[in-house]
């Protein structure tokens, strides 16, 4: 590997990482502010303009607090768990392309942590890994509430991962018809959503070529599944304050707690980014190249990406402000009896429809 290539890779990883940290800090603040607005309150308003530095202040506070280690913990696992929660959260976002690739000299710089050709599988793998952080945290704490939270986390993650994966499969099958062969690479999936549906009918030439339109049902299923996957309200049984104190992180304090907290918000953002990438075309959008200065048209895709992602992040906050927590059996019913059958049905319908379009009806 030559030096410029190494430099580009280092740049990609560092910038992606920093971007993720910055948006997470903003997300925590935005959630508090939006929840406050939805509850007729003011919300954080002290640190910085509109309280935007509140997260930084809280982070510093947590950093300098004592990290209490209860006596009955399984020490190794207890110390490892926060890392198991946070590392997959960061790795997931590394797969997401957050801007249009540009050229420096004759090297292409992709604005993405890493472009794996099995990107989607990697995402599924990592989001399953993240459950280990929660489960081990709950188990190693040696206390009943964390353990209950961990048990719930296991069941919930398994149930909703299936629906999430099936919704992804529908997208992958559909994407395969949009270009040369199938692909699991996130960058390629975005590429295939650039442009409009104009080639189907001139009426649609102003409708962006997002997977959302043909795959709307998969999008709905995916949205529900990612809310459950990130353990957010109304699926936050894992850390249900009213029942389980703090759930799996009850026994954590200081910086170790902050890592779980950070992981939760990183996950919200990465999952929203994935939803935006798979269904809303990621960074795809009109860049007006030529008529705008290069810097602006170069950064427009990133702005589109952020707008799309934040639209989904906002749905997370909105749901949290609106819905009460599901009962456990309702959670399981929704997962197994509604979402998974719905996802399977949709997969069959969309595959059959794609087959007809590709190969014609079998009897003709």
């Amino acid at each position, binding site marked *: 590997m030559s030096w410029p290539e190494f430099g580009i890779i280092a740049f990609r990883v560092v910038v992606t990482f920093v971007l993720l940290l910055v948006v997470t800090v903003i997300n925590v603040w935005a959630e508090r502010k939006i929840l406050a607005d939805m*509850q*007729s*309150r*003011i919300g954080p*308003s002290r640190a910085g303009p509109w309280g935007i530095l509140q997260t930084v202040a809280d982070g510093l506070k947590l950093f300098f607090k004592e990290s209490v280690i209860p006596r009955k913990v399984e020490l190794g696992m207890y110390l490892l768990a926060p890392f198991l929660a946070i590392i997959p959260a960061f790795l997931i976002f590394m797969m997401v392309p957050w801007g249009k690739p540009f050229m420096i000299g004759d090297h292409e710089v992709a604005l993405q942590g890493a472009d794996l050709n099995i990107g989607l599988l990697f995402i599924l793998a990592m989001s399953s890994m993240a459950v280990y952080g929660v489960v081990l945290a709950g188990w190693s704490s040696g206390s009943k509430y964390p353990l209950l939270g961990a048990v719930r986390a296991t069941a919930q993650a398994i149930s909703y991962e299936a629906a999430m994966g099936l919704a992804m499969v529908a997208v992958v099958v559909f994407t395969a018809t949009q270009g040369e062969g199938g692909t699991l690479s996130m960058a390629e999936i975005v590429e295939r959503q650039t442009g409009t549906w104009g080639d189907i009918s001139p009426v649609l030439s102003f409708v962006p070529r997002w997977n959302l339109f043909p795959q709307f049902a998969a999008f709905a299923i995916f949205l529900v599944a990612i809310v459950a996957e990130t353990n957010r309200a109304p699926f936050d049984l894992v850390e249900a304050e009213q029942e389980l104190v703090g759930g799996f992180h009850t026994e954590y304090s200081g910086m170790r707690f902050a890592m779980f907290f950070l992981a939760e918000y990183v996950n919200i953002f990465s999952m929203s980014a994935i939803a935006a990438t798979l269904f809303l075309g990621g960074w795809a959008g009109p860049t007006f190249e030529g008529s705008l200065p290069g810097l602006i048209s170069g950064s427009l895709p990133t702005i589109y990406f952020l707008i799309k992602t934040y639209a989904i992040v906002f749905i997370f906050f909105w749901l949290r402000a609106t819905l009460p927590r599901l009962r456990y059996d309702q959670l399981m019913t929704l997962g197994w009896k509604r979402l998974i059958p719905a996802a399977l049905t949709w997969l069959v319908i969309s595959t059959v429809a794609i087959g007809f379009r590709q190969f014609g009806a079998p009897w003709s």
Partner: protein
Amino acid sequence: MGVIREFIKGLRVTGGTMLRTITGEELVTTEYPKEMRQKPPRFHGRHVLNRYPDGMEKCIGCELCAGVCPAKCIFVRGMDNDPENPTSPGERFGFVYEINMLRCIFCALCVEACPTEAITMTHLFEMSTTNREDAIYTRETLLMDEKGGVPHMFPDDELADMDELAVADGWVKATAPSGMTSYQGVKMWQGTPGPGDWDPEPGQSELDARSPTEDDDG
């Protein structure tokens, strides 16, 4: 599909509230120290020991307040008045008077018990201290001076609002000394520092009140 309709209804409630809050229409909280709210007239705040208009102390050291206090946080010791130079119009006066504000629950039972309306409450509630000793208010801090001013524990604090000490809590004015409910809202006396008279609170009316000579013995 009913579920989905209800779900959208819920989203509309929160979404609508958000829009109305952003425009300031439905905002119910304030940025507290910057913007203080008008407290309700019957607010139970810090205590004050009153004086008669001639400067005599009202407290006669009877310890009824200490006896009734559910938190047992008042400590009173009476002392005989010097006949030449009395401190209070009665036989005795409150020589030691302490309230432990860390234990006080601001129930105003002491105010209710006091036979001479010596102890009343004000609208001051910013009383946090960095030290437990400071939470024990003594006679010096509680007693108003001869002109009716009330000492503040932390007069230099940025939150200190001297006006709040001059507002008497509404209980004294809302209930007649006889305790008859028919006198609620009738201003029988004004035993506290505090400017002016107040209107009856909602639900209370001076017109409803009967005169004390009627057949009501409480």
